[in-house]
């Protein structure tokens, strides 16, 4: 009896002492990455900036104090003969050359800017990912024929990559005419080879991993190996790239708008277009350009910060 209680005591004591080393169970890599993201200052700042921007894009039109198109103070601006009205109580950011409230225009314009960024990134991501998966799958599991297919696809993307991105965008815009859609497509097309190459490279690297070999040895079908083994493990760099290219998409869209290829409709303000219009008055009223410019920079910075933080969080080498 005593030996029995002694043994029980021993086991209890051991359990008590070892408890602290018990690991948490069932945490997938994605969840671990999220945990690391939450601990990263960079990620938090980036997320806050993006959050503000998104909120602004959503509620902007409703909270804007004035209509972004109403030339309410037109008379005031015109009477001054080129003298601009700066910051004042009723117009926080001042007025533009047509007597419109700049603050309201910024708020409303955020939506367009976000739209351009997201849609053009998505165009690049979706088409690029499809091309990348095709190429990557063909290269890793397609045998000799697959490798030919891969080579052809990659030469085409190389060709696209070798063209200067802005030139490509300008040509697309020139063909399709002046509109917001043009800008989005132009910026998106430029991103396609980037995503395609990235995903393919990542899949190629994963394709040589032991667990892919193990899956083959298990007798799993090739299609399933690509979808359940290779692809999920190849996505992290693409996700990071998507975040980063949101930033570049916004900047490139702004650049295209600035070059006059953006939406000509004055009724819908957009930061890039605003920046483009402000250049004429840069000498007299630099602040008119500064607001959209700073807006674009901060937003792009937010996405970049988050992207970089994600890169760190998803890096398997830093796991632990």
């Amino acid at each position: 009896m005593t030996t029995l209680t002694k043994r029980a005591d021993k086991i209890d004591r051991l359990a008590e002492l070892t408890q602290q080393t018990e690991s948490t169970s069932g945490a997938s890599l994605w969840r671990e990455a999220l945990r690391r993201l939450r601990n990263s200052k960079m990620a938090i700042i980036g997320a806050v900036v993006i959050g503000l921007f998104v909120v602004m894009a959503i509620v902007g039109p409703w909270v804007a104090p004035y209509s972004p198109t109403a030339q309410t103070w037109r008379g005031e601006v015109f009477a001054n003969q080129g003298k601009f009205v700066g910051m004042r109580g009723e117009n926080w950011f001042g007025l533009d050359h047509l007597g419109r409230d700049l603050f309201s225009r910024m708020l409303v314009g955020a939506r367009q800017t976000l739209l351009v960024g997201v849609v053009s990134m998505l165009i690049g991501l979706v088409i690029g990912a499809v091309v990348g998966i095709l190429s990557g799958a063909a290269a890793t599991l397609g045998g000799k024929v697959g490798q030919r297919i891969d080579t052809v696809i990659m030469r085409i993307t190389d060709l696209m990559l070798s063209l200067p991105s802005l030139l490509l965008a300008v040509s697309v815009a020139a063909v399709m005419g002046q509109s917001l859609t043009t800008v989005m497509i132009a910026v998106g097309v430029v991103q396609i080879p980037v995503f395609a190459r990235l995903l393919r490279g990542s899949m190629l690297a994963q394709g040589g991993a032991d667990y892919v070999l193990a899956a083959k040895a298990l007798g799993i079908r090739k299609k399933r190996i690509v979808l359940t083994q290779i692809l999920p493990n190849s996505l992290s760099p693409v996700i990071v790239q998507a975040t980063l290219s949101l930033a570049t998409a916004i900047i490139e869209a702004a650049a295209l708008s600035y070059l006059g290829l953006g939406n000509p409709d004055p009724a819908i303000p957009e930061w890039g277009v605003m920046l483009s219009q402000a250049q004429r008055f840069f000498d007299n009223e630099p602040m008119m350009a500064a607001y959209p410019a700073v807006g674009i920079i901060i937003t792009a910075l937010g996405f970049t910060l988050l992207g970089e933080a994600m890169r760190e969080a998803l890096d398997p080498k830093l796991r632990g």
Partner: protein
Amino acid sequence: MSLLELDDVKVHFPVKKGVFFDRTVGHVYAVDGISLSVEAGQTYGLVGESGCGKTTLGRAVLRLVDITSGEVVFDGTDLAKLPDEEMRQFRRRLQMVFQDPLGSLNPRQNIESILSEGMAAHGIGTDRADRREKIKAILARVGLPANSLSRYPHEFSGGQRQRIGIARALVLEPDVIICDEPVSALDVSIQAQVINLLEELQESLGLTYLVIAHDLAVVRHISDVIGVMYLGSLVEEAPSDALYAGPKHPYTRALMSAVPVPDPEVEDRRERILLQGDLPSPANPPAGCRFHTRCPWVQEKCALERPVLTDLGDGHKVACHFAAEIENGTIGLTRATGIEAVVGTDKSADVDAAEPVADKVPAAKVPAQKASVEDAVVVAKPVAVEDEVVVETPVAVEAPVAGKSVAEKPADVDTDADVAAENESDEAAAPEEEAVDKAVPEDKAVDKDKAVPEDKPASDEVADAAGTGAGGKTGSA
């Protein structure tokens, strides 16, 4: 009829070069004509150093690499010629356990998903619940807690991960499991757990194993039959105990004498055959016997003719022209290296070292050489010969040891003696060797044959080597 029979299996990886169109400029002879058979319910151990092609052979059996020629007959079916889809279905019966327990598990799948993937592919189990029951039973069998199902590979320790890898193979109820270095990535205390588990499973499930490993002690422990591989071919095959009791091939002898034993008594008495030099590149294997460039007993014939694996009786097969002569002592080290040394008999010749001086080698003229060998010499860069042989027989510890300070002493005495002997022989050997070089023509021939390009370390991933290192080398040659 054995369960698994390999007949003259060759796996040659093409070495490609070219900017636009890949040209095949050579081959890496990873597996170069291997025949072996594995009996049902037994364990065949395949041992060899890195770059010998053992991993490639294991993968070839499962057709994870393309087989260049030869037959892999499993249960009456030649796997080498099966169409892809049929091969895929056959993989249920032939499974594999990998070396790197973490790398071979998909980091983004939980254990249940990892284990059910294969079942789904082969239509085992009716539905998810049914599969889960099966998985739970297997997990218990390999000694993993039942709550592992929803956890991910990175949450387990190394030993547990290898258990997952074994469970993944087991759920398919295979006949044969190919274990590729199943324990080499694990800590010592964990290795034993996994080895015991493998043995236990074999006993209860009647599994057949093909165990591939570099650790001779591990292979000897679990194998019924051991095959020793060197540079793409089998040099010796024998029942485990017979191989340990009487290794016949010079390479096996050297390998066995190099394996450290955790016992100072054994280590001190050990008679070590130190092979000099490294493994030649499998992209440019030496002509004749693959081992002749490093063999301490090399003869003229060895460079000309490739020995075949011949049965000496009792299932002990060896691929050496002179296995019998080496064993009964008719061929000593003397003739091969130009040193007077008798293995393990004469204490006065404790240590003998010869350092063939490098610049002498290319200058040597080969009198009567066959064309093939001369070709090899022409192609080969005049690389230094590193094939010196050191056979040492330290003086046995004389008195039983008492106390710590004394304990160190005999060892010191031993080594001092060695050093002295070596210094002597070093000085003595150089001129003597030169004389021998001039006197005995076949030795020169041998030396010259040894001038095979030293190559990069041929890693197990010969496929990689094919793309990178070996490619350049072959090209330049």
